[in-house]
């Protein structure tokens, strides 16, 4: 399969407030992603899974050129041309119409874009002249998807896109993603539930504490980790860390579940 984008040892650390000094502007390295190697393939759907704080969103932002990461070329603007990004749960609001919001995004891309077909694709035709304030959460998710589709991207990056959608819309959404993948669009989609993605992803990448723990097809990952069908993310992480799933509690921090290297200055 043709590779659209290759990530080689991509790292990024967030800057967080350093409370060890009195200076309010002092920052130190915080959590992030560490040495991620990943290939995004044309026409395939890659599911990023991991618990809260695993680095899924950071990795997606890195792919979309929102961070100047180590291990990535610096020409973010050129990379962004072929990428459509749908962040998690955008609160679209204001006295602006759906069409106008999409027009803002299309004006940020240097090509003619048929907004009507995008609006139709995401099922917002009847709402295109409605104010953003009047949209339901599901409609807002559709608008976010429409923004990601502007410019016919080669790679679609979607952060928890199924949140806030009713089951019918979820099914329609998954069908749309499969359709786009069949047309050659590479899709990267995140969730903290394996069950959300199981039915339609081709490959899974398991992230934890900023590190890529496993990558491959779901059966192969389960086989490698000695898990049975139906086992989810908790079992996968417990299998890697050696912790009994029955012992998992909120008292266990990410550090307790981290089998790999500790990064200097990193905090929960």
């Amino acid at each position, binding site marked *: 399969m043709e590779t659209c984008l290759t990530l080689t040892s991509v790292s990024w650390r967030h800057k967080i407030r350093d409370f060890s000094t009195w200076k309010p502007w002092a920052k130190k390295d915080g959590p992030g992603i560490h040495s991620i190697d990943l290939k995004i393939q044309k026409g395939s759907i890659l599911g990023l899974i991991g618990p809260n704080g695993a680095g899924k969103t950071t990795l997606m932002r890195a792919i979309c050129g929102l961070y100047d990461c180590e291990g990535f070329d610096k020409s973010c603007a050129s990379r962004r041309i072929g990428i459509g990004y749908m962040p998690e749960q955008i609160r679209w609001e*204001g006295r602006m119409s759906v069409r106008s919001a999409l027009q803002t995004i299309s004006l940020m891309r240097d090509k003619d874009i048929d907004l009507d077909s995008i609006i139709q694709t995401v099922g917002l035709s009847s709402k295109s002249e409605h104010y953003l304030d009047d949209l339901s959460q599901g409609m807002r998710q559709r608008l976010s998807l429409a923004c990601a589709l502007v410019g016919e991207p080669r790679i679609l990056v979607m952060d928890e896109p199924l949140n806030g959608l009713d089951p019918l819309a979820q099914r329609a959404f998954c069908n749309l993603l499969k359709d786009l993948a069949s047309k050659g669009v590479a899709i990267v989609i995140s969730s903290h539930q394996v069950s959300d993605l199981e039915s339609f992803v081709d490959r899974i990448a398991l992230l934890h504490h900023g590190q890529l723990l496993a990558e491959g097809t779901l059966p192969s990952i389960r086989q490698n980790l000695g898990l049975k069908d139906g086992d989810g993310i908790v079992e996968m992480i417990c299998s890697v860390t050696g912790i009994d799933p029955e012992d998992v509690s909120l008292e266990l921090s990410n550090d307790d579940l981290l089998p790999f290297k500790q990064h200097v200055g990193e905090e929960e």
Partner: protein
Amino acid sequence: MSDFNLSLHIMKERLSAGRMLVIWPLLAMFILFSSWGLSDPKANLPGGLIIDSAYDVMYASTAFIVFSATMGAVLISFDGISRDRLSGVLEVKLSQPIKRSVYARALLIGHWLAIFIPVLILNLLSLVIIWYRMDDLPSLEELFIHTIATGLLLLWYTSIQLLASSWAKDMGSSIAVGLGVWMLFTLLWLVLTTVVAGLSGVGVENLNSSEYLQIQATMDLFSPNGVYHLLLEMPLTDVDRGISPLATSMAAILWSTLPLYLFIRRIERMHP
């Protein structure tokens, strides 16, 4: 061309915002009523101010523009970036392939046009009022200087406010910075000037003394409102506060470029 279209789109969006229902009447009252009042030949103005030409009316009414239009610039721009940031929309916008510097320029021009166009329309209407009341019109040169200076003043406030909006993590901080800057230059600058004059050994008993006026003019170079008035004084032959047109122009260029540079730099390095 697309970045200009983006600016126009941002301008339209801002002009159709609900807050314009408050800003329009405020601007109209300040700009039109001040022109009406100041062009009254029987008007008895404080400080022995004598008004005998159309440009004198326009010059005197700029005190009301400084008060209202700059506040309008703050009210239009305070959430120019912070709102998108809080709602998550900024993440979508920053992930688009447009250069960050181009996006920053489009934001600035869009927000600036959204306040400048209403002020320009009202200024043109005030010309009609002045002509009706005094049967006099300013020369083209005076009109040009007045328009350019007003445009620059609004550009300075817009860029400062957008910069504050890009720094702020919430709307409250953004508007606090904007209002703080507005109060500093509009209300507190006179106090600061008096303090500087006092520290320099110039008596503040007589605010019309030549020493005090010199210090005031120098201090004005460090304030957008002051530079605005220095620019407007250029065509006036009977006003000379000892600041050369070159110094005024340099200050205007610095006020135009420095906040703009900081704003573009900020957007280029910004993370959602």
